């Protein structure tokens, strides 16, 4: 009798602790979510407030008195959102495709062939990680102007289409594939390029995903280089366009907020669809590095 009571009590305290722990963890998580997303929620709220509502009122009001979409309609008149979105998409896709292609091409011989100068080449490639782009941007700018690459997609994309990180990552993944794979393909008459493309590339899909995600995040958010190389508004990417918008409408916060919300909408939607891939891609990259 006494033993069962003790057991019951223990079970009671155990489950009490579990519930308590869960409540504590969830409260902490929700609090942190508010900190991480709060500034965005505020932006959305401001973009929905009507002209009649004082957005500077004190204390600040998160919920708009009357929700209106007028700010979005108005900002679309002056903010060529679709043009900027198109430019951002083109620049990001080109950067991702060429970066994955060039890095995987370069990584293949470095991982699976013996040739003269292999180590020197690999070390030189890794050394580029130590060189900050901010040192290079001045000469690259001068060079790009001479080549007529200003205000072009090529000018925005080319400096970023091979990264030491990408070569390193792909080399790591190629080097763990058993050599029997290449040899049997070679017996069947495949050449090196076919082995790379048909046999090896399909086997390193997780690393391709990782490189795609990393390149995507940097290319989509890139600001400094486009700011330097692009002056023509027709070629602006979303960050550049939004930066200009916030400069022109300094007085109308509703419009700036509406512009910000539509600028971040595409990436948020894209991320929400592929969140699992984003997160596992970054995790895979961290383990490989």
């Amino acid at each position, binding site marked *: 009798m006494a033993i069962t009571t003790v057991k019951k009590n223990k079970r009671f305290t155990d489950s009490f602790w579990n519930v308590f722990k869960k409540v504590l963890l969830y409260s902490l998580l929700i609090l942190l979510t508010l900190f991480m997303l709060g500034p965005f929620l*505020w932006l959305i709220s401001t973009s929905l407030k009507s002209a009649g509502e004082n957005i500077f009122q004190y204390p600040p009001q998160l919920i708009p008195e009357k929700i209106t979409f007028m700010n979005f309609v108005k900002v679309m008149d002056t903010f060529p959102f679709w043009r900027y979105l198109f430019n951002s998409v083109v620049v990001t896709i080109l950067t991702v495709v060429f970066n994955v292609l060039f890095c995987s091409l370069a990584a293949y011989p470095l991982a699976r062939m013996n040739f003269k100068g292999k180590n020197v080449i690999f070390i030189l490639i890794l050394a580029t990680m130590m060189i900050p782009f901010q040192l290079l941007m001045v000469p690259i700018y001068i060079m790009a102007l001479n080549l007529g690459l200003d205000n072009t997609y090529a000018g925005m994309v080319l400096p970023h289409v091979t990264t030491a990180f990408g070569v390193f990552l792909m080399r790591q993944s190629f080097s763990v594939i058993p050599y029997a794979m290449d040899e049997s393909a070679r017996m069947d008459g495949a050449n090196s390029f076919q082995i790379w493309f048909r046999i090896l590339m399909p086997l390193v899909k997780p690393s391709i995903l990782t490189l795609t995600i990393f390149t995507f995040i940097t290319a989509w958010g890139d600001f400094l280089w486009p700011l330097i190389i692009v002056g023509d508004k027709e070629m602006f990417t979303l960050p550049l366009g939004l930066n200009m918008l916030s400069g022109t409408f300094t007085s109308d916060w509703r419009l700036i907020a509406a512009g910000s919300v539509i600028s971040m909408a595409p990436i948020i939607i894209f991320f929400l669809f592929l969140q699992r891939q984003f997160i596992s891609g970054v995790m895979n990259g961290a383990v490989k590095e």
Partner: protein
Amino acid sequence: MSRRKLTPYLFLVPGCTILGAFIFYPMLRAIWLSLTDYNMIQDAEFIGFDNYAKLFQDDLFWKTLLNTVIYLVGVVPALVIIPIFLAVLVNQKLKGIGFFRSAFFIPVVTSLVVAGIAWDWVYKENGLLNYALQLAGIITEPIGWLTSTSTALFAVMVVTIWKGLGYYMIIYLAGLQSISESLYEAADIDGANWWQKVTRITIPMLMPFVLLVSIMSSINAMKVFEEIYVMTGGGPLHSSETLVFLIYNEAFGNLDMGYASAAGVILFLLTLILSFINLKFVGNKGNLS
């Protein structure tokens, strides 16, 4: 050379061409430019180390250098330590934990221009932060966080930290999940308590990831530009201006390419020293345990 021998080099051609054209050549060109007086209109004139001499006498250079160091000292420890706790938190087996992981990652994928605008709103004199602090009785008068020389740099630092937390959290999450369960089970059998498991298993096994985050966050802090450009423009009175900001202003504001390149070379040397310190200290600790 036979075709067979040529093959590895062919794979390397695209990547190495890009790295050569956009990193190695500009690197040498930048060093050369740093020894010249060049404004894009007249021909470059060799002036030896004059740019460096001028740099070391320039109060603004020392100011931006100091700001960069303050940035490093403030941002790096926060980004190395806080994400560990976040990672432990989102590694819990709870319902809906995927939602929180994604929520914390959203600032990583949004562009800094949007983030800057959102935080601008938080920092306003009649914004959320002042309201919250007044409500809590911490301050009596609202503070212009971004317009005061004593707070602007720190206000921007908070945004850098906020935007990086999710990224490094995922890297640590990968680290936590790479630790084999059997280690903890063995420790349980030996009667280890929770604290012993944390200090003897989790922390030592996480050290390579701490090194990675430490290197990445310090190199990124060294190169900070976009959040400052968007939020304060380096002001007020240069109080939030960093070294990269100085390079940008000299090169694309004053067209003083030689002077900007000299500052770029200093940035490069500092990046090298920093990576070395990281490898030496954090790396050693990682190996010892």
